[in-house]
Protein backbone atom coordinates (compact mmCIF):
# COMPACT_ATOMS: atom_id res chain seq x y z
CA UNK A 1 0.00 0.00 0.00
CA UNK A 2 2.63 2.56 1.13
CA UNK A 3 2.06 6.15 2.18
CA UNK A 4 3.87 9.23 0.91
CA UNK A 5 4.20 12.77 2.25
CA UNK A 6 5.96 15.93 1.21
CA UNK A 7 6.20 19.40 2.71
CA UNK A 8 7.90 22.59 1.56
CA UNK A 9 8.17 25.81 3.54
CA UNK A 10 9.17 29.16 2.06
CA UNK A 11 11.19 29.79 5.24
CA UNK A 12 13.44 27.43 7.19
CA UNK A 13 11.48 25.91 10.08
CA UNK A 14 12.83 24.46 13.32
CA UNK A 15 9.82 22.15 13.53
CA UNK A 16 9.99 20.76 9.97
CA UNK A 17 11.22 17.35 11.13
CA UNK A 18 8.51 17.20 13.78
CA UNK A 19 5.83 18.08 11.21
CA UNK A 20 6.99 15.36 8.82
CA UNK A 21 7.03 12.76 11.59
CA UNK A 22 3.51 13.77 12.66
CA UNK A 23 2.27 13.52 9.05
CA UNK A 24 3.89 10.10 8.64
CA UNK A 25 2.54 8.84 11.94
CA UNK A 26 -0.92 9.52 10.59
CA UNK A 27 -0.16 7.27 7.61
CA UNK A 28 1.36 4.46 9.69
CA UNK A 29 -1.61 2.19 8.89
CA UNK A 30 -0.36 2.00 5.28
CA UNK A 31 2.59 -0.25 6.13
CA UNK A 32 5.15 -1.27 8.75
CA UNK A 33 8.01 -2.66 6.63
CA UNK A 34 10.08 0.51 6.51
CA UNK A 35 10.04 4.27 6.74
CA UNK A 36 12.25 7.07 5.56
CA UNK A 37 12.67 10.81 5.22
CA UNK A 38 14.83 13.01 2.99
CA UNK A 39 15.22 16.37 4.71
CA UNK A 40 16.58 19.47 3.00
CA UNK A 41 17.86 22.84 4.14
CA UNK A 42 18.83 21.89 7.68
CA UNK A 43 22.56 21.26 7.37
CA UNK A 44 23.89 24.79 6.79
CA UNK A 45 26.78 23.48 4.71
CA UNK A 46 29.24 25.80 2.98
CA UNK A 47 29.42 25.83 -0.81
CA UNK A 48 32.04 23.10 -1.17
CA UNK A 49 30.92 20.99 1.78
CA UNK A 50 28.89 17.79 1.34
CA UNK A 51 27.60 15.09 3.67
CA UNK A 52 28.02 11.41 2.77
CA UNK A 53 26.07 8.99 4.96
CA UNK A 54 27.44 5.47 4.85
CA UNK A 55 26.54 2.12 6.40
CA UNK A 56 29.55 0.09 7.50
CA UNK A 57 29.13 -3.57 8.45
CA UNK A 58 31.32 -6.22 10.08
CA UNK A 59 33.30 -6.87 13.26
CA UNK A 60 34.31 -3.76 15.17
CA UNK A 61 37.97 -4.01 14.15
CA UNK A 62 36.98 -4.39 10.48
CA UNK A 63 34.61 -1.44 10.70
CA UNK A 64 37.42 0.82 11.88
CA UNK A 65 39.50 -0.26 8.91
CA UNK A 66 36.60 0.36 6.57
CA UNK A 67 36.14 3.88 7.96
CA UNK A 68 39.83 4.49 7.23
CA UNK A 69 39.35 3.18 3.69
CA UNK A 70 36.36 5.46 3.06
CA UNK A 71 38.27 8.39 4.55
CA UNK A 72 41.22 7.73 2.26
CA UNK A 73 38.96 7.71 -0.79
CA UNK A 74 37.15 10.85 0.36
CA UNK A 75 40.49 12.61 0.87
CA UNK A 76 41.40 11.69 -2.69
CA UNK A 77 38.36 13.55 -4.07
CA UNK A 78 38.19 16.27 -1.40
CA UNK A 79 39.09 16.73 2.22
CA UNK A 80 37.37 15.00 5.13
CA UNK A 81 36.39 17.62 7.69
CA UNK A 82 34.72 15.34 10.23
CA UNK A 83 33.60 11.73 10.76
CA UNK A 84 30.74 10.90 13.07
CA UNK A 85 28.98 7.62 13.85
CA UNK A 86 25.33 8.59 14.10
CA UNK A 87 24.28 4.98 14.82
CA UNK A 88 26.49 2.43 16.56
CA UNK A 89 24.73 -0.94 16.47
CA UNK A 90 26.13 -4.35 17.38
CA UNK A 91 27.29 -5.19 13.86
CA UNK A 92 27.15 -1.96 11.92
CA UNK A 93 27.73 1.77 12.06
CA UNK A 94 25.94 4.47 10.21
CA UNK A 95 28.60 7.07 9.72
CA UNK A 96 28.56 10.62 8.41
CA UNK A 97 31.55 11.90 6.48
CA UNK A 98 31.54 15.68 6.15
CA UNK A 99 33.72 16.35 3.13
CA UNK A 100 35.12 19.71 2.11
CA UNK A 101 36.71 20.93 -1.16
CA UNK A 102 34.09 19.02 -3.15
CA UNK A 103 31.69 19.52 -6.02
CA UNK A 104 28.80 17.32 -7.04
CA UNK A 105 30.65 15.61 -9.91
CA UNK A 106 33.45 14.49 -7.60
CA UNK A 107 30.94 13.54 -4.90
CA UNK A 108 29.18 11.26 -7.40
CA UNK A 109 32.47 9.56 -8.29
CA UNK A 110 33.32 9.20 -4.60
CA UNK A 111 29.90 7.72 -3.74
CA UNK A 112 30.13 5.16 -6.56
CA UNK A 113 33.63 4.13 -5.50
CA UNK A 114 32.65 3.83 -1.85
CA UNK A 115 29.62 1.78 -2.90
CA UNK A 116 32.09 -0.66 -4.45
CA UNK A 117 33.83 -1.42 -1.13
CA UNK A 118 32.67 -4.69 0.39
CA UNK A 119 30.51 -4.27 3.52
CA UNK A 120 30.05 -0.57 2.83
CA UNK A 121 26.88 1.03 1.40
CA UNK A 122 26.26 4.69 0.66
CA UNK A 123 22.86 5.67 2.07
CA UNK A 124 22.95 9.23 0.75
CA UNK A 125 25.36 11.93 -0.37
CA UNK A 126 24.71 15.60 -0.93
CA UNK A 127 23.60 18.70 0.91
CA UNK A 128 20.55 17.01 2.41
CA UNK A 129 20.03 14.28 5.02
CA UNK A 130 18.47 10.86 4.45
CA UNK A 131 17.04 8.82 7.33
CA UNK A 132 15.65 5.44 6.35
CA UNK A 133 15.34 2.07 7.97
CA UNK A 134 13.08 -0.94 8.48
CA UNK A 135 10.12 -0.67 10.88
CA UNK A 136 7.71 2.10 11.73
CA UNK A 137 8.30 5.82 11.48
CA UNK A 138 8.50 6.05 15.29
CA UNK A 139 11.25 3.43 15.29
CA UNK A 140 13.12 5.37 12.60
CA UNK A 141 12.61 8.60 14.53
CA UNK A 142 13.90 7.06 17.74
CA UNK A 143 17.13 6.05 15.96
CA UNK A 144 17.73 9.19 13.90
CA UNK A 145 15.84 11.93 15.87
CA UNK A 146 14.28 13.31 12.69
CA UNK A 147 11.66 15.17 14.73
CA UNK A 148 14.41 17.37 16.21
CA UNK A 149 15.66 18.50 12.78
CA UNK A 150 15.06 21.82 11.11
CA UNK A 151 14.81 22.45 7.39
CA UNK A 152 12.94 23.90 4.45
CA UNK A 153 11.43 20.83 2.78
CA UNK A 154 11.18 17.09 3.15
CA UNK A 155 9.63 13.99 1.65
CA UNK A 156 8.73 10.85 3.57
CA UNK A 157 7.59 7.29 3.01
CA UNK A 158 5.78 4.60 4.96
CA UNK A 159 6.53 1.24 3.37
CA UNK A 160 4.33 -1.77 2.74
CA UNK A 161 6.70 -3.78 0.57
CA UNK A 162 5.25 -5.18 -2.63
CA UNK A 163 8.48 -4.93 -4.62
CA UNK A 164 11.94 -6.16 -3.60
CA UNK A 165 13.53 -6.79 -0.19
CA UNK A 166 12.67 -5.51 3.25
CA UNK A 167 15.86 -3.83 4.40
CA UNK A 168 17.39 -0.41 4.85
CA UNK A 169 18.54 -0.10 1.23
CA UNK A 170 15.10 -0.84 -0.22
CA UNK A 171 13.36 1.61 2.10
CA UNK A 172 12.46 4.91 0.43
CA UNK A 173 13.50 7.64 -0.36
CA UNK A 174 15.84 6.75 -3.23
CA UNK A 175 18.51 9.09 -4.52
CA UNK A 176 19.94 9.54 -8.01
CA UNK A 177 23.50 10.70 -8.60
CA UNK A 178 22.60 11.93 -12.06
CA UNK A 179 21.43 15.21 -10.61
CA UNK A 180 22.34 16.94 -7.30
CA UNK A 181 20.24 16.13 -4.26
CA UNK A 182 17.30 14.51 -6.01
CA UNK A 183 15.22 11.95 -4.10
CA UNK A 184 11.89 10.19 -4.56
CA UNK A 185 9.19 8.43 -2.52
CA UNK A 186 6.57 6.31 -4.26
CA UNK A 187 3.34 4.42 -3.69
CA UNK A 188 2.50 1.86 -6.38
CA UNK A 189 4.21 -0.26 -9.00
CA UNK A 190 6.08 0.68 -12.17
CA UNK A 191 5.10 -2.14 -14.49
CA UNK A 192 7.52 -1.14 -17.27
CA UNK A 193 10.37 -0.98 -14.76
CA UNK A 194 12.77 -3.27 -16.64
CA UNK A 195 12.40 -1.46 -19.95
CA UNK A 196 12.78 1.91 -18.24
CA UNK A 197 15.81 0.63 -16.34
CA UNK A 198 17.41 -0.78 -19.50
CA UNK A 199 17.06 2.58 -21.27
CA UNK A 200 18.59 4.44 -18.31
CA UNK A 201 21.39 1.91 -17.92
CA UNK A 202 22.14 2.24 -21.63
CA UNK A 203 22.75 5.93 -20.92
CA UNK A 204 25.34 4.87 -18.36
CA UNK A 205 23.31 5.18 -15.22
CA UNK A 206 23.98 2.97 -12.23
CA UNK A 207 21.22 1.25 -10.18
CA UNK A 208 21.96 0.26 -6.59
CA UNK A 209 18.83 -1.86 -5.96
CA UNK A 210 16.21 -3.88 -7.84
CA UNK A 211 13.39 -1.73 -6.50
CA UNK A 212 11.09 -0.27 -9.18
CA UNK A 213 10.97 3.08 -7.38
CA UNK A 214 14.64 3.64 -8.04
CA UNK A 215 13.96 3.95 -11.76
CA UNK A 216 11.62 6.91 -11.14
CA UNK A 217 14.31 9.04 -9.52
CA UNK A 218 16.81 8.23 -12.28
CA UNK A 219 14.17 8.88 -14.94
CA UNK A 220 13.36 12.35 -13.53
CA UNK A 221 17.04 13.13 -12.88
CA UNK A 222 17.83 12.20 -16.48
CA UNK A 223 15.17 14.64 -17.75
CA UNK A 224 16.43 17.45 -15.50
CA UNK A 225 19.95 16.80 -16.71
CA UNK A 226 18.71 17.21 -20.28
CA UNK A 227 17.42 20.66 -19.34
CA UNK A 228 13.75 19.98 -18.76
CA UNK A 229 11.93 21.78 -15.94
CA UNK A 230 10.56 19.59 -13.18
CA UNK A 231 7.00 20.16 -14.48
CA UNK A 232 8.03 18.89 -17.93
CA UNK A 233 9.83 15.90 -16.42
CA UNK A 234 6.73 14.97 -14.41
CA UNK A 235 4.45 15.35 -17.43
CA UNK A 236 6.76 13.07 -19.36
CA UNK A 237 6.86 10.55 -16.47
CA UNK A 238 3.06 10.34 -16.38
CA UNK A 239 3.18 9.52 -20.10
CA UNK A 240 6.13 7.11 -20.08
CA UNK A 241 5.76 5.19 -16.82
CA UNK A 242 3.17 2.41 -16.71
CA UNK A 243 1.28 1.07 -13.74
CA UNK A 244 -0.45 2.48 -10.69
CA UNK A 245 1.63 5.15 -8.99
CA UNK A 246 1.80 8.37 -7.03
CA UNK A 247 5.25 9.71 -6.32
CA UNK A 248 6.90 12.77 -4.79
CA UNK A 249 10.22 14.12 -6.04
CA UNK A 250 12.44 16.49 -4.07
CA UNK A 251 15.26 18.62 -5.49
CA UNK A 252 17.39 21.27 -3.70
CA UNK A 253 14.56 23.80 -3.87
CA UNK A 254 11.41 22.04 -5.16
CA UNK A 255 9.02 19.24 -4.45
CA UNK A 256 6.85 17.74 -7.18
CA UNK A 257 4.10 15.14 -7.19
CA UNK A 258 2.64 13.05 -10.02
CA UNK A 259 -0.21 10.57 -10.22
CA UNK A 260 -0.80 7.80 -12.76
CA UNK A 261 -3.14 8.18 -15.74
CA UNK A 262 -5.77 5.83 -14.33
CA UNK A 263 -5.85 7.46 -10.90
CA UNK A 264 -5.14 4.17 -9.16
CA UNK A 265 -3.08 5.57 -6.31
CA UNK A 266 -4.19 8.41 -4.03
CA UNK A 267 -2.52 11.81 -3.74
CA UNK A 268 -3.67 15.14 -2.50
CA UNK A 269 -2.12 18.54 -1.98
CA UNK A 270 -2.58 21.44 0.45
CA UNK A 271 -1.41 25.00 0.20
CA UNK A 272 -1.31 28.13 2.37
CA UNK A 273 0.74 30.34 4.70
CA UNK A 274 3.99 29.74 2.81
CA UNK A 275 3.61 25.98 3.10
CA UNK A 276 2.89 23.37 0.44
CA UNK A 277 2.15 19.84 1.47
CA UNK A 278 1.38 16.55 -0.25
CA UNK A 279 0.09 13.27 1.09
CA UNK A 280 -1.61 10.02 0.16
CA UNK A 281 -4.47 10.93 2.45
CA UNK A 282 -6.07 14.01 3.95
CA UNK A 283 -5.62 12.53 7.42
CA UNK A 284 -1.89 13.39 7.18
CA UNK A 285 -2.54 16.97 6.05
CA UNK A 286 -5.20 17.69 8.63
CA UNK A 287 -2.86 19.04 11.37
CA UNK A 288 -1.64 21.75 8.97
CA UNK A 289 -5.15 23.20 8.76
CA UNK A 290 -4.77 24.10 5.08
CA UNK A 291 -7.20 23.88 2.18
CA UNK A 292 -6.80 20.48 0.52
CA UNK A 293 -7.26 19.31 -3.05
CA UNK A 294 -7.31 15.86 -4.64
CA UNK A 295 -5.04 15.26 -7.61
CA UNK A 296 -6.85 14.08 -10.73
CA UNK A 297 -5.61 11.02 -12.68
CA UNK A 298 -2.51 11.99 -14.66
CA UNK A 299 -2.16 15.26 -12.75
CA UNK A 300 1.13 16.64 -11.43
CA UNK A 301 2.20 19.67 -9.37
CA UNK A 302 5.46 21.41 -8.53
CA UNK A 303 6.12 23.71 -5.58
CA UNK A 304 9.21 25.90 -5.24
CA UNK A 305 10.83 27.80 -2.39
Amino acid at each position, binding site marked *: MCGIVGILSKEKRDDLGAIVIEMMNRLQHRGRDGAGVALYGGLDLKENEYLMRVEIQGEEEDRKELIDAVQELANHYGSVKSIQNIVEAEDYYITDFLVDKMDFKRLKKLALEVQGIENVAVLSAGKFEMFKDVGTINQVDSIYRVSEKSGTHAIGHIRFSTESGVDRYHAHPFQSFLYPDITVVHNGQITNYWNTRKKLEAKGHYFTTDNDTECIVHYIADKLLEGYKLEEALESAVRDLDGPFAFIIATPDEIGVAKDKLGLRPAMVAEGDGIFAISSEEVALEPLGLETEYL*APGDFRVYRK
Partner: protein
Amino acid sequence: MKMEIDCRDLSVREINRTIKEAVKNGEKRIVLLNPGAKHYLAAGVVGDVEIIVKGSAGYFAGTMIHGVRMIIEKNAGWFAGDNMTDGYIEIQGTAGDGVGQGIYGGTIVVRGNAGARTGEIMKNGTIIIGGNSDFMTGLYMMGGRMIVLGNLRGMAGESIVRGAIYFKGEVDSLGKNAKIVEIDEQDEEWLKEILKAHDFPAFTEKFRKIVPIKKRFVYGSAPSEEG
Protein backbone atom coordinates in the same frame (compact mmCIF):
# COMPACT_ATOMS: atom_id res chain seq x y z
CA MET B 1 -31.72 15.05 21.49
CA LYS B 2 -28.21 15.89 20.33
CA MET B 3 -25.00 14.21 21.21
CA GLU B 4 -21.43 15.38 20.57
CA ILE B 5 -18.41 13.13 20.22
CA ASP B 6 -14.96 14.73 20.26
CA CYS B 7 -13.00 12.45 17.92
CA ARG B 8 -9.60 14.03 18.51
CA ASP B 9 -8.21 11.48 20.94
CA LEU B 10 -10.47 8.54 20.07
CA SER B 11 -9.68 5.63 17.78
CA VAL B 12 -12.05 4.94 14.89
CA ARG B 13 -13.20 1.82 16.70
CA GLU B 14 -14.08 3.86 19.81
CA ILE B 15 -15.91 6.49 17.75
CA ASN B 16 -18.00 3.94 15.85
CA ARG B 17 -18.75 1.91 18.97
CA THR B 18 -20.00 5.12 20.68
CA ILE B 19 -22.15 6.01 17.67
CA LYS B 20 -23.72 2.54 17.49
CA GLU B 21 -24.42 2.48 21.22
CA ALA B 22 -26.05 5.93 20.99
CA VAL B 23 -28.23 4.90 18.04
CA LYS B 24 -29.29 1.80 19.97
CA ASN B 25 -30.31 4.12 22.82
CA GLY B 26 -32.49 6.19 20.50
CA GLU B 27 -30.12 9.11 19.77
CA LYS B 28 -31.38 11.04 16.71
CA ARG B 29 -28.56 13.53 16.12
CA ILE B 30 -24.85 12.96 16.64
CA VAL B 31 -22.18 15.59 15.96
CA LEU B 32 -18.62 14.42 15.37
CA LEU B 33 -16.19 17.16 16.46
CA ASN B 34 -12.52 17.21 15.35
CA PRO B 35 -12.96 14.30 12.92
CA GLY B 36 -9.41 14.82 11.63
CA ALA B 37 -10.10 13.07 8.31
CA LYS B 38 -10.17 9.74 10.15
CA HIS B 39 -11.17 6.69 8.14
CA TYR B 40 -14.34 4.54 8.39
CA LEU B 41 -16.36 7.19 10.27
CA ALA B 42 -19.88 5.81 10.90
CA ALA B 43 -19.08 2.60 9.00
CA GLY B 44 -21.88 0.05 9.26
CA VAL B 45 -24.28 2.28 11.25
CA VAL B 46 -27.93 1.26 10.81
CA GLY B 47 -30.80 3.43 12.06
CA ASP B 48 -32.80 6.60 11.84
CA VAL B 49 -30.11 9.05 12.89
CA GLU B 50 -28.42 12.20 11.60
CA ILE B 51 -24.61 12.27 11.86
CA ILE B 52 -22.87 15.61 11.31
CA VAL B 53 -19.12 15.48 10.65
CA LYS B 54 -17.64 18.89 11.54
CA GLY B 55 -14.71 18.70 9.12
CA SER B 56 -13.22 16.20 6.70
CA ALA B 57 -13.70 12.45 6.71
CA GLY B 58 -11.08 9.97 5.50
CA TYR B 59 -11.60 6.77 3.50
CA PHE B 60 -14.87 4.78 3.55
CA ALA B 61 -16.98 7.42 5.34
CA GLY B 62 -20.48 6.04 5.82
CA THR B 63 -19.60 2.72 4.22
CA MET B 64 -22.40 0.13 4.48
CA ILE B 65 -24.78 2.48 6.30
CA HIS B 66 -28.57 1.97 6.19
CA GLY B 67 -31.09 4.67 6.95
CA VAL B 68 -28.52 7.18 8.22
CA ARG B 69 -28.43 10.83 7.19
CA MET B 70 -24.76 11.82 7.20
CA ILE B 71 -23.50 15.36 6.55
CA ILE B 72 -19.76 15.83 6.03
CA GLU B 73 -18.99 19.53 6.25
CA LYS B 74 -15.66 19.37 4.36
CA ASN B 75 -14.10 16.67 2.17
CA ALA B 76 -14.38 12.90 2.10
CA GLY B 77 -11.60 10.50 1.06
CA TRP B 78 -11.85 7.44 -1.21
CA PHE B 79 -15.02 5.32 -1.30
CA ALA B 80 -17.43 7.50 0.70
CA GLY B 81 -20.76 5.68 1.02
CA ASP B 82 -19.29 2.46 -0.33
CA ASN B 83 -21.99 -0.24 -0.42
CA MET B 84 -24.60 1.81 1.45
CA THR B 85 -28.05 0.31 1.18
CA ASP B 86 -30.25 3.27 2.10
CA GLY B 87 -29.94 6.75 3.60
CA TYR B 88 -28.34 10.03 2.62
CA ILE B 89 -24.75 11.26 2.55
CA GLU B 90 -23.92 14.88 1.77
CA ILE B 91 -20.28 15.86 1.21
CA GLN B 92 -20.07 19.64 1.25
CA GLY B 93 -16.50 19.82 -0.06
CA THR B 94 -14.89 17.47 -2.56
CA ALA B 95 -14.98 13.69 -2.67
CA GLY B 96 -12.05 11.39 -3.42
CA ASP B 97 -12.13 8.48 -5.83
CA GLY B 98 -14.84 5.82 -5.87
CA VAL B 99 -17.57 7.81 -4.14
CA GLY B 100 -20.74 5.68 -3.99
CA GLN B 101 -18.99 2.51 -5.07
CA GLY B 102 -21.43 -0.41 -5.21
CA ILE B 103 -24.35 1.40 -3.55
CA TYR B 104 -27.62 -0.52 -3.40
CA GLY B 105 -29.81 2.47 -2.55
CA GLY B 106 -30.05 5.90 -0.95
CA THR B 107 -28.66 9.22 -2.13
CA ILE B 108 -25.18 10.70 -2.11
CA VAL B 109 -24.70 14.41 -2.80
CA VAL B 110 -21.25 15.92 -3.39
CA ARG B 111 -21.34 19.72 -3.52
CA GLY B 112 -17.83 20.03 -5.02
CA ASN B 113 -15.89 17.83 -7.43
CA ALA B 114 -15.62 14.04 -7.26
CA GLY B 115 -12.58 11.90 -8.03
CA ALA B 116 -12.16 8.99 -10.43
CA ARG B 117 -14.54 6.02 -10.73
CA THR B 118 -17.56 7.78 -9.19
CA GLY B 119 -20.43 5.30 -8.79
CA GLU B 120 -18.28 2.33 -9.78
CA ILE B 121 -20.48 -0.81 -9.88
CA MET B 122 -23.41 1.06 -8.31
CA LYS B 123 -26.55 -1.04 -8.34
CA ASN B 124 -29.26 1.40 -7.37
CA GLY B 125 -29.83 4.76 -5.68
CA THR B 126 -28.78 8.26 -6.75
CA ILE B 127 -25.49 10.14 -6.80
CA ILE B 128 -25.39 13.90 -7.46
CA ILE B 129 -22.09 15.66 -8.12
CA GLY B 130 -22.25 19.45 -8.01
CA GLY B 131 -18.94 19.94 -9.82
CA ASN B 132 -16.88 17.73 -12.13
CA SER B 133 -16.55 13.98 -11.95
CA ASP B 134 -13.23 12.42 -12.87
CA PHE B 135 -11.96 9.51 -14.96
CA MET B 136 -14.23 6.48 -15.60
CA THR B 137 -17.35 7.84 -13.90
CA GLY B 138 -19.91 5.03 -13.70
CA LEU B 139 -17.37 2.25 -14.31
CA TYR B 140 -19.30 -1.06 -14.55
CA MET B 141 -22.47 0.76 -13.45
CA MET B 142 -25.26 -1.77 -12.97
CA GLY B 143 -28.19 0.44 -12.02
CA GLY B 144 -29.37 3.64 -10.39
CA ARG B 145 -28.92 7.19 -11.57
CA MET B 146 -26.11 9.68 -11.40
CA ILE B 147 -26.24 13.43 -12.02
CA VAL B 148 -23.11 15.46 -12.76
CA LEU B 149 -23.57 19.21 -13.03
CA GLY B 150 -20.04 19.82 -14.30
CA ASN B 151 -17.80 17.95 -16.74
CA LEU B 152 -17.00 14.27 -17.09
CA ARG B 153 -13.41 13.24 -17.71
CA GLY B 154 -12.24 10.36 -19.90
CA MET B 155 -13.93 7.00 -20.41
CA ALA B 156 -17.22 8.07 -18.85
CA GLY B 157 -19.66 5.19 -18.41
CA GLU B 158 -17.00 2.53 -19.10
CA SER B 159 -18.77 -0.85 -19.42
CA ILE B 160 -22.06 0.49 -18.06
CA VAL B 161 -24.79 -2.19 -18.24
CA ARG B 162 -27.79 -0.49 -16.65
CA GLY B 163 -28.73 2.90 -15.18
CA ALA B 164 -27.98 6.40 -16.49
CA ILE B 165 -25.49 9.22 -15.97
CA TYR B 166 -27.13 12.62 -16.47
CA PHE B 167 -24.64 15.39 -17.12
CA LYS B 168 -24.57 19.04 -18.06
CA GLY B 169 -20.99 19.81 -19.06
CA GLU B 170 -18.43 18.37 -21.46
CA VAL B 171 -17.36 14.74 -21.78
CA ASP B 172 -13.66 14.06 -22.48
CA SER B 173 -14.42 10.62 -23.90
CA LEU B 174 -16.89 7.77 -23.54
CA GLY B 175 -16.07 4.29 -22.28
CA LYS B 176 -17.02 1.06 -24.02
CA ASN B 177 -20.75 0.20 -24.11
CA ALA B 178 -21.64 3.85 -23.39
CA LYS B 179 -23.57 6.22 -25.62
CA ILE B 180 -24.98 9.73 -25.18
CA VAL B 181 -28.68 10.35 -25.75
CA GLU B 182 -31.01 13.30 -25.25
CA ILE B 183 -33.15 13.36 -22.12
CA ASP B 184 -36.94 12.91 -22.43
CA GLU B 185 -39.81 14.62 -20.59
CA GLN B 186 -39.82 12.10 -17.80
CA ASP B 187 -36.11 12.65 -17.24
CA GLU B 188 -36.64 16.38 -17.23
CA GLU B 189 -39.36 16.20 -14.59
CA TRP B 190 -37.28 13.92 -12.40
CA LEU B 191 -34.20 16.12 -12.76
CA LYS B 192 -36.10 19.30 -11.85
CA GLU B 193 -37.61 17.67 -8.82
CA ILE B 194 -34.44 16.08 -7.45
CA LEU B 195 -32.19 19.08 -8.09
CA LYS B 196 -34.63 21.40 -6.34
CA ALA B 197 -34.95 18.98 -3.44
CA HIS B 198 -31.19 19.08 -2.94
CA ASP B 199 -30.75 22.85 -3.33
CA PHE B 200 -29.18 22.86 -6.79
CA PRO B 201 -30.39 25.17 -9.61
CA ALA B 202 -33.15 23.13 -11.27
CA PHE B 203 -32.41 24.19 -14.85
CA THR B 204 -32.53 21.18 -17.13
CA GLU B 205 -31.20 22.87 -20.28
CA LYS B 206 -28.07 21.24 -21.71
CA PHE B 207 -28.62 18.02 -19.77
CA ARG B 208 -27.93 14.84 -21.69
CA LYS B 209 -27.46 11.32 -20.41
CA ILE B 210 -25.11 8.39 -20.85
CA VAL B 211 -26.81 5.03 -21.13
CA PRO B 212 -25.64 1.53 -22.14
CA ILE B 213 -25.49 0.54 -25.80
CA LYS B 214 -26.32 -3.04 -24.86
CA LYS B 215 -27.86 -4.01 -21.54
CA ARG B 216 -26.25 -7.42 -21.55
CA PHE B 217 -22.76 -8.24 -22.69
CA VAL B 218 -19.83 -10.31 -21.58
CA TYR B 219 -17.24 -8.11 -19.84
CA GLY B 220 -14.22 -7.58 -22.03
CA SER B 221 -16.30 -7.60 -25.21
CA ALA B 222 -18.25 -4.40 -24.68
CA PRO B 223 -19.16 -2.55 -27.87
CA SER B 224 -18.12 1.05 -28.37
CA GLU B 225 -20.40 3.74 -29.76
CA GLU B 226 -18.48 3.58 -33.03
CA GLY B 227 -19.46 -0.08 -33.21
